[in-house]
């Protein structure tokens, strides 16, 4: 066989089911409290610090991390369940999710001890927000092309340049960013990039908002002008960030958030169609549910591999490719199937409002976190084609 792609039928252990009930009950309480409205996706209230703190109190941020840093030392499969339930409920997780998924694990691996002791417990308590500084104007997916410079100075580095498409930079307390510390070499185009922990809200950083076609505000341009980063904020190896950045990607690429972002329109379609669907609606729903179920099985399978300490880079890329293409098409399929829902259906208005937002969201889904083209390149490499 060319490629031994494995998606073993991993099952979630019993304690995950107990946890799932707890998360569902918590989210129901939050909805009752009016923290968020899952039926109003075009909301302006996505940044809800109190909600984050309450999630932190439950121990659901940094769940897999060591206890001495505020974590719970729970399994990836338990974390999986929490992510899944938050996503399906449309909960406002934006403020803590990046730190939970990516920034925290990077710090755990590469930050000096005093920084871990300072920052990780605060992440776990839901108090701080992270942004990721990868893309730059004219670089985007081509990380090698990053130009923002970190120049060595006394006790640290001076940063000059611009990051772009930086989600949540306007509310973030920290950013983990990649800056250029040396030029690439002829032999190694990947050489010369270093990962830094950046404390936001300091002089020398300017955050400029960029509007999105959904009407929401999430993206920013972040301009650094002689911004100082101390030496102990270098994460990992100087000039060696490429490998660090890519090894984290399996976590970013295979989770439930990679196929559930527009899931709410499917629920609302089922609600609007009612208990006696016509054949066309039934078939459409059946296919979508079969596809959803299959992706979830693949995603759970990758979570099981991560739990087992493997690095399923190709499998994770496959899940993200199929998952994001699916969640991108979903609003359009639902729109198609909703064409014959009774005009008088009481929830039709909700469905239409959800669809409006999901259709506007859809174009970004195959771009964020590694474009489809980049992912297919990684899969092709795994197949031995390059």
């Amino acid at each position, binding site marked *: *066989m*060319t*490629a*031994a*792609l*494995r*998606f*073993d*039928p991993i*099952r*979630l252990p019993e304690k995950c089911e107990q946890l*799932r009930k707890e998360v569902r009950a918590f989210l129901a309480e939050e909805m009752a409290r009016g923290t968020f409205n899952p039926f109003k996706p075009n909301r302006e209230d996505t940044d809800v610090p109190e909600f984050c703190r309450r999630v932190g109190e439950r121990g659901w941020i940094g769940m897999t991390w060591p206890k001495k840093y505020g974590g719970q030392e729970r399994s990836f499969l338990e974390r999986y369940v929490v992510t*899944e339930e938050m996503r*399906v409920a449309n909960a406002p997780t934006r403020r803590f999710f990046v730190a939970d998924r990516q920034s925290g694990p990077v710090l755990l691996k590469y930050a000096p001890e005093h920084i871990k002791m300072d920052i990780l417990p605060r992440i776990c308590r839901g108090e701080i927000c992270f942004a990721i500084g990868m893309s730059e104007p004219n670089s985007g997916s081509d990380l090698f092309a990053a130009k923002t410079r970190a120049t060595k100075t006394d006790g640290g580095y001076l940063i000059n340049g611009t990051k772009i498409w930086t989600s949540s930079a306007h509310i973030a307390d920290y950013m983990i960013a990649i800056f250029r510390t040396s030029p690439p070499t002829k032999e190694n185009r990947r050489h010369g990039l270093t990962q830094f922990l950046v404390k936001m809200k300091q002089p020398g950083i300017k955050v400029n908002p960029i509007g999105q076609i959904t009407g929401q505000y999430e993206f920013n341009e972040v301009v650094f002008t002689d911004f100082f980063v101390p030496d102990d904020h270098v994460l990992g190896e100087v000039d060696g960030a490429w490998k660090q950045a890519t090894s984290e990607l399996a976590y970013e690429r295979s989770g439930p958030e990679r196929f559930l972002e527009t*899931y709410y329109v*499917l*629920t*609302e379609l*089922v*609600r609007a*169609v*009612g*208990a*006696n*669907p016509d*054949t066309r*609606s*039934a*078939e*459409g*729903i*059946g*296919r979508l*549910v*079969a*596809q*959803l*179920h*299959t*992706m*979830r*099985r*693949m995603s759970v*399978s990758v979570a099981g591999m991560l739990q087992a300490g493997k690095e399923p880079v190709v*499998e994770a890329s*496959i899940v993200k*490719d*199929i998952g994001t293409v699916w969640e991108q098409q979903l609003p359009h399929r639902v729109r198609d199937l909703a064409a014959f829902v009774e005009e008088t259906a009481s929830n039709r208005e909700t469905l239409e409002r959800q669809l409006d937002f999901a259709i506007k969201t859809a174009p970004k889904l195959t771009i964020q976190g590694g474009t489809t*083209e980049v*992912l*297919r*390149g990684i*899969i*092709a490499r*795994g*197949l*031995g*084609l*390059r």
Partner: protein
Amino acid sequence: MAESDNIVVETAEKIFADLADPQTINNDKKGSWQAPLWQALSEAGLPLSWVPDDLGGSGASLADGFALLNAAGRFAVAVPLAETMLAGWLLAQARIASPEGEMTVVPASPKDRITVDADGALSGRCRGVPFAKAAKHFAVLAHGKDGVSIALVDASKGRIESGLNVGYDHSDTVTLDKAQPVAVKAAPDGVDQTTLMLMGGVARSLQIAGALESMLDISVRYSNERIAFEKKISKFQAVQHNLARLAGESAAALAAATSAADAIANAKKFDDEVYLEAAAAKIRCAEAAEKGGGIAHQVHGAIGFTIEHILHRYSLRALAWRDDFGSESYWAVELGKLVAVRGADQLWPLVASR
């Protein structure tokens, strides 16, 4: 799928490698490979994997049998292995011993019905029965006044109209007209036509997933051999992206099929959650057969369209297997109805049930 550590699968793979090499089979226009292959499989006890020892079988677990079917798909084996296994399984549900030789199950479509009279005679017409012409016996699921029965019928008691599916394998119409069975017994609770169709559907899903694994394998290999515009076609980004999509379809099929097999192997009964697994596998694997098979042919260009090349052994069979035991459109409608009846708020709990 990686090399198996499963003794049933290992045995089967060795037999397939020795006696069912796709290239050799493809060159053998007379079908003289079939008898030795069937004999070797029978001697290893594989066709009756799912029949307990005391009923004449080899008593392998459901899980091992499903893994065997996936391996059979990887070799696009065109002998009634899956059909005989399903027949043996069905008969064993009613504690009817399995005879030797090829068998198949009747009906093979959720819409067809066999009825059983008060005196046990069977009647009905069923289309698309795989390998009916090659079968010595039928395992029949029949409906009567007292509920569902399972019967063993000598194939000579039925009228068979030959047909071929799109993969050039036998897919026949079987008519029973007051046929007297060798044995007939009441089906146990929980075994009905839907159960049989879901079992058959999962068997086909595993075969389709296996065929897709092989299609990916030979397509990658071909792309690394074929030179066009002065380079290997595997170096063209468009080809790489197509193969990445084929890998995705193959992986999705394998994940859906093995998950469903695992669910059935560990289930106490066919509840909604198992139904979701089995129906979803058939739907998704059929979709993967269409998309993945299309890409495999695209990568191969004109050579893959020839009867000399082995690609069609996998691609056409994967397409044909979509039709047996309920097509993807059939199961999609049924699954959609199930979801609708349970209601919107129960959709996620169903999907996230395990």
